[in-house]
């Protein structure tokens, strides 16, 4: 009985574990004071600077489940809303975030480029980058 309770509790808490973390270059000015709303503004390119540092948000490919999770929890926008937004921005002369093909390429880009931010699974983060935001899903 105790084993069942412990297994259930372990399963419950593992489901509440962070789905993704947002990372930045370790030496950059980007700190942990960014909340979900600010990260959303960065990914909509409404916020493009922190002081004089130009921000470069990175997306994973459209088929990546992590992007779907990020889009749902941080952007709070459907595929249609984002497609509409970026089509209008293209007409107005603005580009969407860069799309990277893998988590490894996001980490490599963030490591090399000051101002770059991206979202990756927490277990993929190494000492070369810093976590600036952690998302938890569930309750």
């Amino acid at each position: 009985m105790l084993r069942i309770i412990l297994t259930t509790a372990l399963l419950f808490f593992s489901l509440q574990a962070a789905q993704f973390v947002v990372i930045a270059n370790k030496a950059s000015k980007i700190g942990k004071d960014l909340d979900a709303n600010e990260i959303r503004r960065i990914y909509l390119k409404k916020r493009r600077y922190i002081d004089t540092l130009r921000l470069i948000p990175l997306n994973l490919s459209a088929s990546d489940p992590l992007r779907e999770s990020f889009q749902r929890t941080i952007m709070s926008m459907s595929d249609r809303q984002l497609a509409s937004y970026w089509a209008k921005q293209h007409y107005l002369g603005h580009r969407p975030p860069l799309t990277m093909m893998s988590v490894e390429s996001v980490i490599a880009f963030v490591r090399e480029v000051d101002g770059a931010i991206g979202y990756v699974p927490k277990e993929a983060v190494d000492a070369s980058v810093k976590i600036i935001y952690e998302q938890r899903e569930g309750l």
Partner: protein
Amino acid sequence: MRFAVLIALLFHLFAYGEEAAYRPGEGVQVAGLPLYVGGYFSLNYRQQEELQQLSLDDLALLAYGDDGKFFYLAEIEASDSYLKNWMPENSTNTELRFHAERLYFGYDFNDINSLKIGKYNSPIGFWNLTPVNVLRDTTSSPVSTEILFPKYTTGFGLSHHTYSASENSINLMMQQTRDLDALYNSDDVYNNFDTDRHYGIGFVHTLGAWSYQLNTGTFHTHLKETFFYLMASLCYESETFKLLSEIGSQHDRGEFSVPYAGYVQGVYRFTPQHAGILRLEAYKDDTRAAKDAFSVFGYTYRPIYPVALKAEYQLHSLHSEDQFLISFSVLF
């Protein structure tokens, strides 16, 4: 011949564009430069009591980019480059005549303040910032966006944005010269008013799904007319429903030239691809001795967002103006 050159140019740019995976509606990067190109077109069919017409409209090429805090955009457009009439008379006209629709460069001082210099969409109301067929809700545009204010301004544009729980913007337009397009097309300037002066200010407030805007200004035309305009706009948008309303008036030295022009429009998205639109419009234009109230019933299908197939029927108080419109438009 010029049409063939344009298609060849577009093909070259898309074939040798830098981005590995092209996504429709986002353009392509050119040769690793801070330069992106794209464009759009629309094919429209219109039927009225005494008019039946097919036209290739909005054929445009745009290029833009940014380098540090500097940004730039150029757009050329050929309107009605192909016109086929069955009524009132059978005729076909093909003319590829390009106009400078937009051409500006600018500087972002920071997230809050930016300046642009050149010819740009007048930031008036919600409809006018993205006026092209593929981006708007219906094939037709509300009459208020055609008769109240200049759709384009050539001069300086200052923008100030603040962000907190709400978003607020102030936009200033300053023009003290003739429309940029007049340099090449002095007898056919690409603007609804051939202006040589325009000063305007706009205030935008956004809180959640609601946005409100107030615009006022004055402009002077090449024909020595001076007008003042005032317009209020409101927008509510959720995933399934959008409400848009704009109303304004225009004065000509103390007398109304357009006592009122406005509309209320609702868009309901049955699915992400299918939407129904109802728009109610009314206007009185004393400069043309015209007055009308009408309903627009529209349907839009977007298999993907940058591709739009639309149909609409307009029911006017002047029944001779009743019309049926269908269009196919693409943003690339």
